[in-house]
């Protein structure tokens, strides 16, 4: 609990707990069931563990990695009781997340000296980009920052309206050139708007696109370049939004969006409905890009900063 108190107030911890409740019940429940009645970690226990991890969308490669490490511990310690498995698994997962070498954020504070801080938000269709932008803008607003949203999804029906509603809810600035406008021009002008209106943050929405559509991925490159033209060094962050209910395809998405736009941060959404918080482990293992934010509910304040230790703690808390 001490760890939590440091980073989360009670409400936030409750959200995280509730948000990944399903993960927890499946993860811990299955694991407990799997090792019930067994005293030592043997082949069969490892096989059960494998099933628990894969069923949580940790992914094949990462699962194998985790199990191999536990196998190694079993081999060196000669005897390993199942009662220790929980603790060992927990520490191995924390290690795996930490090897990523990415620092967790403490709060929503942005690096000082960059104004406007430009965030470009990308992802496949339906992952929750617009909602994440709304929640993120709200957090910045709470910190007293002036935020502008740029309506760069000019393709999907009513996408501009949707973002506008979020801007109104948050009470932040909104820049749009309407539907069908060139998204690169929207990005350029959103940054200009931010410069002229003394905004601290500019968050640029983009249309959802499947990572296999080369032309659309190139368009993202163009949007990014026009952002840089508008302000040197921008975008300061390219945020890839991933849906936590997505399976192994999340890895492909991360790969291709990174190739197209040098993704610098990840947001993992819909963690509240998924039994699969495990995807966070797989992604951290396979990518050196930090998970910055997690979405744990539909309300405007249900976006949290991802914290490895807190995440694993919540995962293992009985």
């Amino acid at each position, binding site marked *: 609990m001490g760890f939590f108190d440091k980073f989360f107030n009670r409400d936030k911890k409750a959200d995280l707990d509730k948000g990944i409740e399903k993960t927890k019940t499946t993860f811990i429940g299955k694991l407990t069931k799997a090792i019930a009645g067994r005293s030592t970690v043997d082949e069969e226990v490892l096989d059960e563990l494998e099933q628990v991890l894969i069923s949580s969308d940790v992914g094949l490669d990462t699962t*194998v990695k985790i199990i191999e490490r536990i196998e190694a511990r079993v081999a060196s310690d000669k005897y390993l009781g199942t009662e220790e498995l929980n603790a060992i698994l927990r520490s191995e997962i924390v290690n795996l997340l930490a090897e990523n070498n990415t620092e967790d954020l403490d709060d929503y504070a942005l690096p000082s000296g960059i104004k406007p801080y430009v965030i470009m938000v990308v992802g496949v269709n339906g992952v929750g980009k617009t909602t994440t932008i709304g929640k993120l803008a709200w957090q910045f607003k709470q910190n007293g920052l002036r935020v502008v949203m740029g309506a760069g999804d000019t393709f999907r029906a009513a996408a501009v309206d949707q973002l506008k509603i979020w801007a109104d809810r948050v009470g932040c600035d909104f820049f749009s050139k309407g539907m069908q406008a060139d998204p690169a021009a929207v990005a350029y002008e959103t940054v200009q708007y931010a410069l002229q209106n003394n905004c601290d943050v500019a968050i640029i929405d983009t249309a959802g696109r*499947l990572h296999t559509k*080369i032309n659309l991925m*190139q368009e993202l490159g163009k949007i990014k370049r026009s952002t840089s033209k508008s302000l040197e060094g921008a975008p300061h962050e390219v945020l890839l939004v991933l849906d936590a209910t997505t399976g*192994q*395809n999340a890895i492909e998405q991360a790969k291709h969006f990174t190739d197209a736009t040098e993704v610098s941060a990840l947001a993992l959404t*819909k963690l509240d409905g998924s039994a699969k918080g495990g995807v966070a482990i797989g992604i951290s293992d396979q990518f050196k890009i930090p998970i910055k934010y997690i979405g744990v509910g539909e309300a405007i304040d249900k976006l949290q900063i991802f914290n490895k230790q807190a995440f694993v703690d919540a995962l293992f808390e009985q």
Partner: protein
Amino acid sequence: MFESLSDRLDVAFKALRGDNKLTELNIAESIKEIRRALVGADVNYKIAKEFTDKVKDKALGVDNVLKSVSPGQLMTKIVMDELVELMGGQAAGIDLSGKPTVVLIAGLQGSGKTTFSGKLAHHLKTKRNKKPLLVACDVYRPAAIDQLSTLAEQVGVPVYKEPGNNNPVAIALKAIESAKQQGQDVVIVDTAGRLAVDEEMMKEIANVKQAILPQEVLFVVDSMTGQDAVNTAKAFNDIIDFDGVVLTKLDGDTRGGAALSVKYTVGKPIKFVSTGEKMDTLDVFYPDRMAQRILGMGDIVSFVERAQEQFDEQEAKRIEKKLKKNKFDFDDFLSQINQIRKMGDIKSVLGMLPGVGKAMKDVDIDDSAFKRVEAMIQSMTPHERSNPDIMNMNRKKRIAMGSGRSLDEVNAFIRQFEQMRKMMHKIATNPSLMGMTGGGAGGMNKGFRR
């Protein structure tokens, strides 16, 4: 991942070369490969296990008398047959008997319900000669009503909406009344996305269903969904007992194991697959194609079908002959370009080939490049076209002028053409060059670990 399952299975069987029979011992490794393939495709772990157990029983019961069939091929066939059977079942049409027919659409957030609703309206209007009405019952998500209205306009179908009213039951009921009065014969009710764990929202959709008594309840599921597909499908099925499944976003590169998980868990047919953002990208479901996709074998059937539809066999033979003799010329090249173009966007065509799909993702093929090439070839004289070797600086200059391209571009194109001609000649005379695949299975003794 996999080039093709049968390749991998053949490797798994190689250790026991000479043994052409399937035995408990020699299929153990390949069963693991199959399970690995399924889990890698996001098929639920438990389902993958049960499935492979079934395959194992089947395989042991088969007498492999065909010398020409390798054990790997045989296993692949057994797996395919099982998978197709599992995902097929009865032909799944959509019940349009109601007056009006009411279709309820449900699913998680972001699965593609609203887009699918628009596509279904378009499908029913254009293919089934129906007069659909779209109903905006997603009263929660910002601008969801506007989104449906925009799509309705795009497909030329009326939409029923009550902005400000946040009672989906009332909206749906009034919409049905309105449809009766206006003579619309299908009512498509789009609902808000909801999580299976959200009891309040699940109760709401149950209430909607109870009130409007739909002929069809369709559950929309993102084909990229992971292991949780099972839980979600089960929860929705328990509450709204849906009639069919819609798989969306299949135009991506997901292997779509969720399709199997859902079908296996709830036993409901997959009625539609959705493959793009345009309103006409809705398809019926082909179990065999899905099986191949899940196993990472490429959509060979679709490719072959599309190719057959468009491909002129005689033309292909003529060109093959020319390739062998290294007589492939610019005219042939032009005709090839036209053939490929007839089949659709080149990338999507090549992407359907097994093994190629993955490689192609990183290759940038610009369709407009074809236009430039065509312009250059069309600026050549007939003599030049059939005799690529006579090309010289004067001719190139003239071609550049004629096609409006730079001399550099003409040079580059002719160089590429020469390289391609050499390559194709090699392949045509030695087809085995095409079939190179890499990778080995490696021994796994337990689970998926090596």
